[in-house]
C-alpha cells in the first residue's frame, strides 16, 4: 500500500528467561499510515514498549524476535519522477549494523518511556543532543549548538542558552522528558515513536508539546506512533487507535469509532474505567481479575478469564482478526461465526 509507512506482520518477541519463556509480543499485525498519528494503548506490561523498540531493532537480552516482518517503506525524494520505494525489513537487519544505525535517530526517532534510560548522567543534555545532530547531518558544531538551543526553546525549556549546559540530574522530571523530545525531533524524523512522552508533564505544558508535535507533523509530514495511557491525549491527537492486550492488537480503528462504538469487551472496559474529572470520591471500578501469568498465557482468547461477555468457545478458540468496517478490525469471537470455526478446527 502506497500510504503505509511501516507494515508489521506477525511480529513475535519472546524473552527466554531462566523461569520460562515470556511471550511479550505474540503475533502483532500493524500498519502505520504515512503522515498520520497512530495511538497505541493497552494495559501495563502488555508489550507496547517491547514492540515499539523492535521498530528500531532494539531488543534487550534475553529477548529475541522469533518471527515476523517489519517492513519500512522508505521514500527517497528524487528529482526525476516519484520517489523510489526502497523497502527494508527492519527485523532482518543486523542490530549493530550500519544500516539500522543510519535509520535510528534520523529516519525513525524514539522518545523512550523513562528519560534516564536514554540520557547519560555523565554528559550535559546539550552535548547529547548535539551528538545526534552531528552524527546525522552536515552541520558544524556551532550550528548544531544553535539548533539545539532552538529545539530546547521550542519544547518549553526556560533559559535554553543556559540549560543546554546542564546535566540531566539537575533538571526536573518533566524538563528531562522535554529535553528528550528535543533530541528526538533534532533530525526531523520520518517516524517519531513516542513512548509515554508526556507522563511527566503538567496539562498546560503537555498541551504545548502536543501542539508542537502536530505542527511538525503538518510541516514535515512526520508520522507519529504515540504510546499512552492517557485516553484524554488519545482523544486530542490520534487519527487511529490500536488497542493491545497481552501481546496482541485486539482492536484497531479510527479514533471516532473507537470512542463511540468500541467493539472489543476489553476496549469497552478500558473506556469505562477512566476516572472522570467531575466524579466524586467513590470507589473506582477497575477491570476485574489479574493480569495472567506471563509464562503461560490463557488458552483461546487471551482476555477470556477477565471478560464479562465470555462464552464457552472463548476458552478454546483463538479469535482471528475480523473486519467490522472500512478501518475497524477486532479480535473477538463475538464477531465471528463460532460454529463455522469449530467445524474447520475439528477438521484440521
Amino acid at each position: 500500500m502506497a500510504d503505509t509507512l511501516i507494515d508489521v506482520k506477525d511480529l513475535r518477541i519472546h524473552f527466554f528467561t531462566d523461569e520460562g519463556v515470556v511471550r511479550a509480543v505474540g503475533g502483532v499485525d500493524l500498519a502505520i499510515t504515512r503522515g498520520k498519528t497512530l495511538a497505541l494503548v493497552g494495559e501495563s506490561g502488555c508489550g507496547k514498549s517491547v514492540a515499539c523498540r523492535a521498530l528500531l531493532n532494539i531488543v534487550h537480552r534475553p529477548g529475541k524476535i522469533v518471527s515476523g516482518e517489519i517492513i519500512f517503506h522508505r521514500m527517497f525524494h528524487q528529482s526525476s519522477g516519484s520517489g523510489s520505494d526502497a523497502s527494508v525489513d527492519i527485523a532482518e537487519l543486523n542490530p549493530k549494523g550500519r544500516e539500522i544505525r543510519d535509520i535510528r535517530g534520523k529516519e525513525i526517532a524514539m522518545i523512550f518511556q523513562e528519560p534516564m534510560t536514554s540520557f547519560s548522567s555523565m554528559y550535559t543534555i546539550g552535548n547529547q543532543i548535539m551528538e545526534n545532530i552531528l552524527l546525522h547531518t552536515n552541520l558544524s558544531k556551532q550550528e548544531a549548538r544553535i539548533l539545539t538551543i532552538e529545539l530546547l526553546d521550542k519544547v518549553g525549556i526556560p533559559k535554553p542558552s543556559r540549560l543546554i549546559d546542564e546535566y540531566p540530574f539537575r533538571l526536573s522530571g518533566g524538563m528531562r522528558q522535554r529535553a528528550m523530545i528535543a533530541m528526538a525531533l533534532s533530525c526531523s524524523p520520518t517516524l517519531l515513536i513516542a513512548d509515554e512522552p508526556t507522563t511527566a508533564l503538567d496539562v498546560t505544558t503537555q498541551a504545548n508539546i502536543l501542539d508542537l508535535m502536530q505542527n511538525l507533523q503538518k510541516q514535515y509530514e512526520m508520522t507519529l506512533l504515540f504510546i499512552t495511557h492517557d485516553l484524554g491525549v488519545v482523544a486530542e491527537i490520534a487519527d487511529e487507535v490500536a488497542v493491545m492486550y497481552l501481546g496482541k492488537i485486539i482492536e484497531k480503528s479510527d479514533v471516532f469509532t473507537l470512542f463511540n462504538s468500541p467493539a472489543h469487551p476489553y476496549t469497552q472496559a478500558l473506556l469505562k474505567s477512566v476516572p472522570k474529572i467531575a466524579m466524586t470520591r467513590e470507589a473506582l471500578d477497575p477491570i476485574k481479575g489479574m493480569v495472567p501469568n506471563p509464562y503461560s498465557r490463557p488458552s483461546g482468547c487471551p482476555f477470556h478469564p477477565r471478560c464479562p461477555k465470555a462464552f464457552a468457545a472463548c476458552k478454546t478458540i483463538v479469535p482471528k482478526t475480523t473486519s467490522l468496517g472500512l478501518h475497524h478490525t477486532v479480535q473477538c469471537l463475538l464477531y465471528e461465526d463460532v460454529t463455522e470455526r469449530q467445524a474447520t478446527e475439528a477438521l484440521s
Partner: protein
Amino acid sequence: MTSSEHIPQAARQMTDDSYLLEVKNLRKHFPITAGILARLKGYTRAADDVSFYIRQGETLGLVGESGCGKTTVGRCVVRAYKPTAGEILYRRADGSVVDLAQIRGREVRTYRKDIRFIFQDPYAALNPRMTVFDLISEVLAVNHIGTRAERVDQVESLLKRVGMRPEYMRRYPHAFSGGERQRISIARALITNPRLVVCDEAVSALDVSVRVQILNLLEELQADFDLTYLFISHDLSVIRHICDRVNVMYVGKLVETAEATELYTQPKHPYAEALMSAVPVHDPVLRDSQHRIRLEGEIADPSNPPSGCYFHPRCRYAQPRCSTEEPALHDLGNGHFAACHFAEELNLQGVRMG
C-alpha cells in the same frame, strides 16, 4: 536564616493538633555554577518560601507546571535534600514534634521507616543489581524486621496487591515494563507500614485500570492505618479523586491552596484557571473546540524570576501593579488562599465537567 534554629526540638509546636506535618517558609536554592572553576553564577530558587500543612490521615495534592519545584518540596520533606531554610515540623507517633529541617546524618535515617517516598523516575530509583525481592525488603532487612521467611511472605502479598505476580520476585528491574517498575517502587514504599508517604507521580506510568487498583489500595491503607499522603501529580483527575485539599505551585511559590472540589469549580488564581482549562476531555469530537487557555510568553526562569507577580508575563488578567508588586496570599475563607491581587474580584472558570 530563621530564628527557629535556636528553639530546642522539644519545645516545638504546630499550629493545630490535627496536623501531622507543617512546613513553614521552606526554601531550597540550588547553586548554578559555570566553567571548570565552578564559579557561582546564581541560584535556582526551586522552593521559595513555601508554607503548608497536612492533617493526620489526609491527602494533600501538589500540582503545578513542570519544573516549578514539586519534587524539590517532596524531597525536602523526606530529607533527601537539606533545605536551605525553613521548618518542616513533623509529629512523631508519640505526639512529640520534631523539625526535620534541623536533623542530620544518622538521625535522618531513623525516619526512613515512617516517612516514605515514591520516586518520580523508577528507572533511576531502582538499583539495577538488586532483585525485586531485595529492593522491596531492603528497608526491613536493614532494620532487622522479621525473619527472611516473613519478609518473603510480606513481599509476596504486597506484590499481589499492586497487581504483580509474586513469581517476579527474583527478577531484576530491567526486565520489567515502565508501569511494572513503578509498582515495584510503590511496594517498596509501602512495605514498612509508614505514617507519611510522599507520592511523586506515583501512578503516572500506569494504565487506567491498574491505576484505579493502586488508588483504591492507597485509600484502603489510609482508612486502615490512618496514613497521610503528599500526592504530587500532573493528572488532575487523579488528584481530584484522591485528594482532600490541593496546593498549586508556580515557579517555586505556592500560589493557591484550597479544598479539592472548590479549587476545581472555583479557582481563584489565573494560573490555576489555565491549568483547569487544559485538562484533556475524553471525547475526540470536542478536540478542536477552543477551550484551552494557551499559556503564551516566556516560561519563568527560577534563577531570575519576573518582578512582581511571577505569573504576570503570561497572565491574561495582568494589570500594571502586577509587574511591580508581589501579591500576598489572600485569605478567601474556608481554608482557600490565593496569591493574586485580584483573587476576590476575578470570576474565573473551573474545570469543564466532561
